[in-house]
C-alpha cells in the first residue's frame, strides 16, 4: 500500500501551520508529534477517555477520532492556547488550581477544553449539568468532586 500525503493548512491557537501529513495520521498525533503541542494527551484512542479533547471550529471533539487531513482549513484550540502563558492562567485553569481539580494532571487538558466549550455555551450551570457535561471525560485520580467545584467557581468568576 502506498502512503500518500496531503498538504494541509490548519490554524492552531491562532497560528496557521502548513504541513504535509499522511492520510492516516490521527489529529491527536499530528498535534502532539508534528506540531509539538504535547499538552493534548492520549488515553485510549477509541473515543472514551476524553483526554485528547480539543476545540475544533468552536466545538469540543475527540482528536483521536479525527484525521489530521480533516483539519485542513479548520481552526483548533488546544490547552496551550487557553492562556497566554503559565503565569497568566485562564479562569478555568485558575479555578482548577484553587480547588485542587487535578492530581496527576493527565486528564486535565481534555477536561479544560471540554469545560471551556461548555461554559462558553452554559455560563451558569448547576452541579447536575456540570457532571453531565463532564461525563465524557474520565479522570482516574480525583473522583471528580474537586473538578466540579472548580467548574462552578470558574463559572462564577467568569460571570463576574
Amino acid at each position, binding site marked *: *500500500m502506498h502512503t500518500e500525503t496531503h498538504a494541509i493548512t490548519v490554524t492552531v491557537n491562532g497560528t496557521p501551520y502548513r504541513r504535509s501529513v499522511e492520510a492516516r495520521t490521527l489529529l491527536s498525533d499530528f498535534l502532539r508529534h508534528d506540531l509539538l503541542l504535547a499538552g493534548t494527551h492520549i488515553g485510549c484512542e477509541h473515543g472514551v477517555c476524553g483526554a485528547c479533547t480539543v476545540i475544533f471550529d468552536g466545538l469540543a471533539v475527540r482528536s483521536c477520532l479525527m*484525521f489530521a487531513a480533516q483539519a485542513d482549513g479548520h481552526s483548533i484550540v488546544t490547552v496551550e492556547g487557553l492562556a497566554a502563558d503559565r503565569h497568566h492562567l485562564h479562569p478555568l485553569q485558575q479555578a482548577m488550581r484553587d480547588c485542587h481539580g487535578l492530581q496527576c494532571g493527565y486528564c486535565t487538558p481534555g477536561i479544560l477544553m471540554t469545560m471551556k466549550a461548555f461554559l462558553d455555551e452554559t455560563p451558569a450551570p448547576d452541579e447536575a449539568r456540570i457532571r453531565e457535561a463532564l461525563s465524557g471525560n474520565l479522570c482516574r485520580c480525583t473522583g471528580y468532586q474537586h473538578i466540579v467545584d472548580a467548574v462552578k467557581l470558574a463559572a462564577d468568576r467568569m460571570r463576574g
Partner: protein
Amino acid sequence: MKPAPFRYVAARALDEALQLKAAHGEEARFLAGGQSLVPTMNFRLSQPALLIDINPLTELAGMRKCGLDRVRIGALTRYRELERDPAVAPILPLVDEALPHIAHPQIRNRTTIGGNLAHADPASEMPAIILALGGRLRAQSVKGERWIAAADFFTGALSTALEPDEMLVEVELPTAPSRSGACFMEMARRHGDFALVGVACMLRLDEDGRCGEARIGLCNAGDTPMFAAQASQSLVGGKLGAAEIGTAAALVQRDIDPPGNIHASKEFQRHLAGVLTARALAAANERARRAH
C-alpha cells in the same frame, strides 16, 4: 492503536463521493462523524482502502418539513444540531428524548444521523426510533436514488440494505400526531453507554381516549433494532390501563430475542425490556393524555 494505511479523499461534491464509492465498492467507506468508524480503524478491526470524507458536503445537513406531517433530516445532520434545535422536541419527541443518551457531548458534536443509522449497531438508539416511527431512508448512488422503509433497512448487526455503491442521504420521519405521547427510555451501565435495552414508544389516542395507534421499538433486543408489532397491535382499541400495558410488555418479552452480552444476560435483557416497555408506555400514555 494506529489505523492501517488508506487513501483519503475529501469529497467536494455529492457526485464525486458517489462516483468514488461506485468505483471502489466495499473497499471504500464514507467518513461522516467518524465516531464509530475511526475507533474500529484504530483497533485495526476495519481497514478500508479508501476513505471518502463527506463532511464537506454541507448540503446533506439540516432538517426540513415535508408536507404537513413529515420531516426530512439530511444524513450529515449532527446530533449536536438536533439537540439544540427547538423545533425538534414538539415534532420528534422521541428523537429529542433519546439524544442525551447517545454517547457524550463531544461525540454528539461530530456524530451524524446518517452515520449512526448506516452503522446499524443493534444497541443504538436512533435506529429503534426510526423503526418504531415507521420512517424511511433515501439512498443514492450514481445509478439513482431509492427510498428504503426502515423495516427493510436494518438487515443484521452492523449491516443494512445499502448497496456497496450507495450513500444514505436522508431520513424521513412522521411528525408527532395530535393527541399523541411518546417516551424513550433506556438502561445503560453508565450514562452515555450503549443501552442494555432501550424502548421507544409512541401512542396516539382516539377521540374517546382509547388507543388509536401504538408503536413500540426496541434497541439491543435482537440482532437488529426491533419493531414490536404484536405488542403494538395489542394496544390498539384498548384503554391503556395497567392490564393492557402489562400484556404489551409481556408480548415484547415473548417476541424479542436479545443477544446477551457481558453486561446483561439474555434473561436480564428480556426482563428489562418488559420493565422498560411498561414504564415507557405508562409515561407515553400520561403524556398523550396531558396533550389531549
